[in-house]
């Protein structure tokens, strides 16, 4: 593997991304019900955190209580950008469903760009659903700019607001345990996912419904955010098995002495 130069790796990387893109675009139309060429009834394995998330959203609509969504502190120009985008697509779906109920979600975040995007996402969802008068900019707030000040700034939203569930989706560190613990103390259901493995380890013990590994990135597909989300999960599976094949083939070639 070391024989490959930086240019070779660049080319392989480009091919990898193009292949991934084509798979997503190819799968999407096949998943639409009316396309007539639907793949054999594709389903996704059960992840109980997302089942509970759908229940918490419906409960929030019926009981008129709020749902608190906290998006972490993933900066868009940093390593946490992908998980921040996932948090925003979860917010889009939650806001869309709650637009039928009395109160929309409360959203907190720990990054300036993320706070702006959370307000834009909520405003866009409400105006598309025809209830733009419900939009209140103060529903999307910045609670702190460093990890632990963000976490401690989020606690009053859990203790004071009349919310039934806390959904954590985005880039967190070990400070995520403070938020999950407060949600546990307040008797809320806690659904939590992060891209940081240390945060996943502490959320395993402090959240009711933790998402581990790459499960956070499947949030869009499991909350029916559109066929593209489901298609990208299926594309991920294809790439997953391709990687397994490449690794085994590479080892075989190395043992033979070719690589």
């Amino acid at each position, binding site marked *: 593997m070391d024989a490959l130069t930086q240019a070779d790796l660049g080319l392989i990387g480009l091919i990898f991304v193009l292949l991934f893109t084509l798979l997503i675009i190819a799968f*999407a139309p096949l998943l639409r019900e009316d396309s007539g060429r639907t793949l054999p009834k594709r389903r996704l394995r059960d992840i109980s955190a997302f089942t509970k998330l759908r229940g918490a959203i419906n409960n929030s609509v019926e009981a008129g209580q709020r749902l608190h969504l906290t998006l972490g502190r993933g900066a868009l120009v940093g390593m946490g950008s992908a998980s921040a985008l996932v948090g925003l697509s979860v917010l889009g779906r939650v806001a869309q469903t709650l637009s039928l109920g009395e109160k929309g979600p409360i959203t907190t975040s720990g990054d300036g760009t993320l706070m702006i995007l959370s307000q834009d996402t909520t405003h866009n*969802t409400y105006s598309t659903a025809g209830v733009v008068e419900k939009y209140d900019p103060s529903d999307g707030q910045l609670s702190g700019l460093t990890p632990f000040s963000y976490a401690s700034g989020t606690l009053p939203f859990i203790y004071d607001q009349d919310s039934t569930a806390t959904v954590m989706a985005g880039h967190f560190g070990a400070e995520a345990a403070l938020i999950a613990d407060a949600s546990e103390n307040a008797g809320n259901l806690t659904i939590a996912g992060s891209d940081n493995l240390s945060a996943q380890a502490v959320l395993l013990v402090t959240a009711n419904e933790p998402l581990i590994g790459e499960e956070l990135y499947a949030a869009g597909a499991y909350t029916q955010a559109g066929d*593209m989300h489901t298609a990208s999960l299926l594309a991920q599976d294809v790439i997953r098995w391709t990687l397994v094949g490449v690794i085994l083939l590479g080892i075989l070639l190395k043992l033979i002495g070719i690589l």
Partner: protein
Amino acid sequence: MSEVQCSHCGKENPPDLEICQHCQSPLVAPQQPEELADVPPEGPLSELTGIIPIESAVNEITIPKPYSVKVRVSESQRANVRLLENLTKEGVRPPSRERAPGVTIQQALRILTAMALILAISWGIIFDTPSFQLPSADARISEFSEHIITLPESAPVLLAFEYEPGFSSELEPSMTIILDQLLSRGAYPVLVSTTPTGVVQGQRAIGLLNQKAGRVYEAPSDYINLGYIPGGATGLNSFNAGIRSTFPLEANGNQVWALPPLQNVNSLSDFNLVIVFTDSTETARSWIEQVGTDLQDTPLLMVASAQAEPLINPYYNSDPRQVDGLIAGLAGGAAYETYTGGMEVSRPLWGAFNMSVVVAAGLILFGGLVSVIGAAYKSESNGPSGH
């Protein structure tokens, strides 16, 4: 005007009514949603179908319009309607969560756990017995020290302060010894950070050393604090591409690159050593991926928190090494202190730290056993989220 047939019960009604007089369901013809014209997918990828699905799913959901009531209603019926409206207007509001009075089990367990830990730590601090053996140095620590000892005179060394203030207690013991080793050998530390508070962390570290070493190291003669690199991994990428353009001035606005030790430094590989102090795996990965690949012969060393150690280890164990030396947590600091014979920084806390870890493990073990037995009675279990 012809009679209006009720769509619900099929019976005829006078034309001016909007509510069927037989089954009270609305007579107004339900508003047909405009034919969802096959909205041509827009966007630059319009030839490919199904690319932008979101609006069609969203537009189906609209709030039904309230129906106006123009029916001859008696006064008593109007009163009943008002009563019904008042009832439904408040909606069904579940009783808000009244906090159970008194101390809950959770709170009691919290206080007991905290007291157990505080007692163990107090015992360790006050009595410092039983004496706990200081950890021995492994290859990661001996190689770390080797890279510092072999530094030439007034060698420029890049120090990256990439940890949150909360982790200061874990990293500062080994940091103080390393700074002492570098400055007493005449090396020239250059401080940077991609974390906003990293700028002052570096200043604090120099202050702590000045207190302990009993002499005052000053900028710019002994070291320089370049300041904050914004933009996380992206900023690090552009810093690696051009260190002089990224920092024309240092943190307090003075010229930098004219200083003697830095005159020959044009890129990161011109530094003799790069040491990253971090509490996060992501930041460590940023430095390895964005900077490590271009350092050529310059060693990349890391002082990490115990929480980042499991995921930085693979980079030390990789072949070739992507991290050339690693000190992890307070235990790493104590081992480094023992190995280098440096000033006593970790030693005073080592006994208390040992006691707290042993008590914490005991609490988890004991609590875990009680839990498993308790759950056996409850006799129904599943893995977390079905794992």
